[in-house]
């Protein structure tokens, strides 16, 4: 028995949920960024699965674009993280609360 589309989608959903959870449970900017990467990958899995189900190349091609976006976000995100670390010598997001209320 072959896994169905739904199996992939469920797996993708689980990974996506893990990613979202990661944004909250970790107090480390790097890990938070990693969590977002998990979310994007989960979406990628959905795309490929949908593409497979539809029988076209579109799903896969979208994944390439998503990877590009992920790379761009990672670059900028890490640059910001570096900038922040310079200011506060910390990677804890809760350190950065001078803007509030």
């Amino acid at each position, binding site marked *: 028995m072959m896994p169905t589309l739904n199996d992939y989608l469920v797996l993708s959903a689980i990974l996506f949920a893990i990613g979202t959870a990661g944004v909250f449970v970790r107090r480390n900017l790097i890990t938070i960024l990693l969590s977002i990467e998990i979310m994007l990958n989960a979406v990628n899995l959905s795309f490929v699965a949908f593409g497979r189900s539809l029988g076209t190349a579109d799903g896969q091609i979208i994944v390439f674009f998503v990877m590009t976006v992920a790379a761009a976000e990672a670059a900028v995100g890490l640059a*910001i993280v570096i900038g922040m670390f310079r200011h506060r010598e910390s990677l804890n*997001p809760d350190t950065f609360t001078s803007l509030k209320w």
Partner: protein
Amino acid sequence: MASLNAIVPMLCVAAAGIAAMIAEAFTSPGERMPIAPLGVIGLVGAGLAVAALWGHNASSFGLVAADNFGLFVTGILVVVGLLSIAISGPTIEREGLPRGEYYALMLFAIAGMILMATATDLLVIFLALEVLSIGVYVLTGIRRDSPVSTEAAFKYFLLGAFASAFFLYGIAFTYGLTGSTRLDRIGSVIAAQALTPAPMHWLALGLLLVGFAFKVSAVPFHMWTPDAYEGAPSAVTGFMSTGVKAAAFAAFVRVFLSAFEPLRASWSAALWPIAAATMIVGTVVGVAQTNVKRMLAYSSIAHGGYLLLALISGNDVGKGAVLFYLLTYALTNLGAFGVIVLLEDHDRPNDRVADYAGLWNDHPALAALMTIFLLSLGGFPPMAGFIAKWYVFSAAVKAGYVWLAIIGVLTSVVSVFFYLRIVVMMYMTPGGESISRFPSVPKIAGAALVLSALAIFYLGILPTRFIDLAAASISSIF
């Protein structure tokens, strides 16, 4: 080969961005290179392209459509760009920002916004969204030496990335449901499925909605807004509060009122409380703010709520209202941030409400301009803001969303309270310090502000031309 016409405005701006980068790269340190004019040329080119393309319904690759709707928003974005560049000069000067990169990023972001407004494909919309978002993230944090600026950029970035993941997930489901990312195809498939929507429709709809709601800072997706607005350089705040909003709303309207139009009853039911909460939270929390930029951030949230109201109404009036509102909001809010920029000093940001005390004595013209902008934001005639609000509320009344309209008008009264706080400071509270605490006004920025003030009066007193344009814009696509 598909026609390239539809992407000409975007190309103009992107080319100007690249030119700005190159110019910066070939400038020796210390040499002053006029980079801003490059951007102006690009934006003017985009504007001319808009004029030339008007009414032609050009389309490129089937992915980008230069219909009147998109062109109207492009026009707004051109105005946003021009005004932003005009008010950026003093900020760059004072903060010592990297001029070339600054303008390049801004122009790229505008290019992304234009693309977002004209794209008819979810993937392109997503890419455009990322282009503009990344540009704006960086602009937010461009004051590297300022922890606040970096923090703002970080928050904006993190939440933006978080939200775009949801958005992307929504695209994935849409793709899975319809087999395409093109809006026209999605629309026809959805229309066919609308009578028997599957749970996955709801996932797609909900997640896309969340993505847009984040970009237009609707409650509860708004929390990045005050922090990012406060931390960013004021010119950037003005730019993003208007440009991002315009682009995001354009795409929002396009996606939800064309592709997802068949499911309107469903999504408007979900947007209803969001719009209400946005208007209420934006104004109510704005009341307690003591920082002008932060206050305007909440105001911007509230204005997003009014735009959502127009979107929910979904009728022809509402669509026209979105366009008109975006235009006036762009002029007005950029004007207000322009004044904030001009009042900034490197030593002190002068962005607390209390800093405005006695401005009338020191800078009567700036005080008057600020008053005009604030009153327009508050929706007083004969300023454009009034017409815009009236337009939105008539859409809501027509669509039968009377309670939302009531919330809207009442919150606009509350919002007047905090706009007036600044007016009170400027006019009715004596300033304690010497006259020289505010820097002098550069000519270009000053002229830009005066022009936008005049435009606000024009739109407020003789709005019919632009109302007709807006009406014509929406009639072409929906």
